[in-house]
C-alpha cells in the first residue's frame, strides 16, 4: 500500500491473491480504521457490531479478492461497498435501522461536493452527519496526513512548530499539508457519495 494514497499496487494485490500473511496484514491494517469508522456510524455507534462488520467485510473481501478490479475503483471504495451489504444484513437481522443511512439529503450532498469550491454553510458544518463524515474521512487517510491535519487545524499549531516536532523543513510540512488536504478531499467526497447513493442502485466495483 502506498503511504501516499489508497491505491493497491499490483504486487500487493498479487500477495493478497496468494494469501500471503504479510500482504494481508499490510492490507488489513491500512484499511481497518476506515472500514470500522464507516461501519461505526451506520450501526448507531455499536462498537461490537461495527467490529463484527469489519471482520465480515474483510473475510468476504479476501475470499473475493480476485474479483477486485483496481481499474474500476479504489480498494477502499470496494471495501466500503462490501461493508454496506454487511451492515444492511446485520441491521436487518437485529431489526434495527441505521441512523445515518437515510439522512443525507441532496442539499447536504451538494454542500459536501463543494468542499473544494466554496465555503460550507454553517448549518452543514454543524450537522452530526458532517462530524461523522469527517471521522470516517480521517480514519481513511494515511496516519501522517491525519497527524498533520490534526496538529494544524485542530490544535492550531503553526507550520513552524509542526516542522520542529516532525523534524522537517517548514516547506516540507507545507507540502505534506497540501497532500493531506487533497487526500482528505478525495476521501470526504468518496464517503459522501457512498452515503448518499443507495447500495441497490450502485454499480458493483467488480470485473
Amino acid at each position, binding site marked *: 500500500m502506498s503511504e501516499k494514497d489508497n491505491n493497491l499496487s499490483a504486487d500487493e494485490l498479487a500477495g493478497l491473491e496468494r494469501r500471503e*500473511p504479510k500482504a*494481508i*496484514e499490510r492490507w*488489513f*491494517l491500512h484499511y*481497518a*480504521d476506515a472500514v*470500522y*469508522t464507516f461501519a*461505526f456510524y451506520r450501526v448507531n*455507534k455499536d*462498537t*461490537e457490531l*461495527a*467490529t*463484527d462488520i*469489519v*471482520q*465480515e*467485510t*474483510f*473475510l*468476504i473481501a*479476501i*475470499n473475493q479478492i480476485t474479483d477486485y478490479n483496481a481499474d474500476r475503483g479504489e480498494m477502499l471504495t470496494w471495501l466500503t461497498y462490501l461493508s454496506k451489504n*454487511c451492515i444492511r444484513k446485520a441491521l436487518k437481522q437485529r431489526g434495527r435501522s441505521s441512523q445515518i443511512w437515510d439522512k443525507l439529503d441532496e442539499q447536504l450532498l451538494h454542500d459536501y461536493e*463543494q*468542499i*473544494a*469550491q*466554496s*465555503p*460550507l454553510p454553517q448549518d452543514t*458544518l*454543524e450537522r452530526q452527519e*458532517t*462530524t461523522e463524515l*469527517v*471521522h470516517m474521512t*480521517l*480514519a481513511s487517510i494515511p496516519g501522517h496526513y*491525519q497527524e498533520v*491535519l*490534526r496538529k494544524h*487545524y*485542530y490544535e492550531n499549531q*503553526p*507550520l513552524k512548530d509542526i516542522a520542529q516536532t516532525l523534524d522537517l523543513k517548514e516547506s516540507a510540512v*507545507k507540502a505534506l499539508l497540501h497532500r493531506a*488536504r487533497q487526500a*482528505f*478531499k478525495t476521501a470526504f467526497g468518496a464517503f459522501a457519495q457512498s452515503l448518499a447513493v443507495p447500495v441497490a442502485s450502485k454499480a458493483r466495483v467488480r470485473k
Partner: protein
Amino acid sequence: MNEMNSRNFDPLENNIRKLMSHAQPGLTMPQASKEKILAALTGREGSPSSLLQTFFMKGKTMMKSRIVKFGFPVAAAIVLMLLAFWPEAGVTPKVYGMSDIAPLIKQAKTFHLHGWAYPRGTKALRQEIQHWADLETGQFRMVKPGGTDPKTGKPYYSTQICDGKYILKETYHQPLEGESYLEGRYTQMSAFQAKLLTRNNVYSFIMQTFGNLDRITGTVKIDQETIDGISYDIWERVVIIPSPGSERSTKISVWLDPTTGNIGKMLMWMKNKEEWALLGEFDRFEFNVPLSQELFSTKPPAGLRMANTKDTAPMEELSGDINKVCSGSLAVQAKIGFTLSDGSVILGWQSIDANHPDQADLFNGLELGGALPKLPIEIYGLETLPAIPNGKYNGYHLAHTQKGGKYYEWSIYVCENKTTPLRHNILGYALLNRSNVDIKASSLALAIHDDLMIATQEDFDTWVLGAMADLSDNGMIPKEITYENIMALSSRIRESLNKEPSKTLENR
C-alpha cells in the same frame, strides 16, 4: 501562496479547518479487535480456542470457534469480538452489555454462585451447586455434584472448604461391602497457595461461561425478560466443541441487567446431534457480596469420618507435580507462569539432577537480564501453542530462590518479534528445553496453559512476588524484582532483539 493567503482564499483549506474544529478526530478500531481479525484473516490464530475444563465433567475439552470450524465466509456472521471503550460516553446512563462483565468480574473480591446441574440433561436428576469465594483471603467453599450412589440411587456431593490455610476435602466412599460414607481429609497450604487456588477455582468457572475475560466473544443479545420486576437482556454465546467423528456445541445464556450489570440467571446447554440439552442453571452469580466466615469453617461436620487431623495434614507444595517431566535422573518442572501486559512471560521453574543435588554453583554470577543458569535441563525459550510465525520467546535470568534445599529459577521470556502475540489468542506456551547433561538428549514435552495474566503492579506484587516468596525459605524476594524494573527490562530486551536479530533463538 503563503499560509495566511491560503487560509483566506483556499476554500478547501478553509472548509477543512472548520470541519476539523467541529470534529475531534481520533476514532480508530480497537487494537485488540484488529489483532483478532488479523489473526482470523491470516489463519494465524488457530481461532479463539481455549481450554475448557467443564464444571460438571472431568477432563479437558478443547473449544474451537466457528471461525475455524466453518471457514471464513460463514464465520463472519458469528465473529468473536472484544468490545471497545468508546470515549463518547457523555452523560447517557451506562448500559451494561456482556463486554462490561469482564471489568466487573476483574474488580470483584468475592463471588457467590448458586445453581443446579442437570445430569444427562434431565431436570429430575438435578443436583445443587454452590460456590463461595473470597479472593482476598484465599477462602472458598465449593459444593459440586459427585454422582449418584448406585446402591441407594441418591446423589452425593464433593465438597471442598478452604479457610485460607487448611483445606477440608470431603470424598464419598463406596466400599464393595458395607455402607457408603463421606470421608474428610485435611491438607494445608501457604496463604499464597490458598489465594491462588481460590482464584483459579473461580476463573475456571468464568472461563467456561464467559470465555477469556480479555476477549469476551461471540455473545449475542437475543431477547429480554422481566424477572421479579427487573428487566434483563438475554445474551447467548455458542461455542463449538470439535470431537472425533462428530461435533458438539455448548451454549451459555445469560440474563444481564443492563442498568446494573447484575446477572439474574444463567443457563448452560450442550447440543448433542440436533437437540440442546440443559446441563445447568444458575440463579445466583454475584460479585462483591459479603460472605460469612462460617462458610469457610474447616471444622468437620457431624458424621464426617476424618482420615487425619489438622496436626497431621500434609503441606501442599506449589503446583505439586503438575507440569513436571523426568528423564532418567533428570527432572524439570514449571512451577508457575505469568504473562505480563506486554506479552512477555515470567516462569518459575526448577530442574534437578538426582545425582548432583547441590546446584549452588550453577546460580553464581548470574545477572538480571543475563544468561540462564545451566541447570540440568534448561528451559531456554518458549513457543506459542499453537505454534504461530514469530511466536518464539528468548529466555533471560531474573533471579533465583531457594527453599528446602531446592533451587528455583525465575526467568523472563521475551518474544523475538516486534508484535508479541496476545495471550488470549493462544492456548499457552510450549517450554523449549535442552539437556545440559546429555547434549544428545532430545527435548522433553513440556507446556503451560494456566499462566496468570499480570496487568498491573498490584497483580505483579500479589502473584509474581507472592510466588517467589512462596518458593523461598525466608519469604524474601530479590530487591531488584519490581514491576517497574521487570517491565523496563522486558522492553529493553525486546528493543535489543529487534536491533540485533542475531540474538534470536534461530540464530543463537
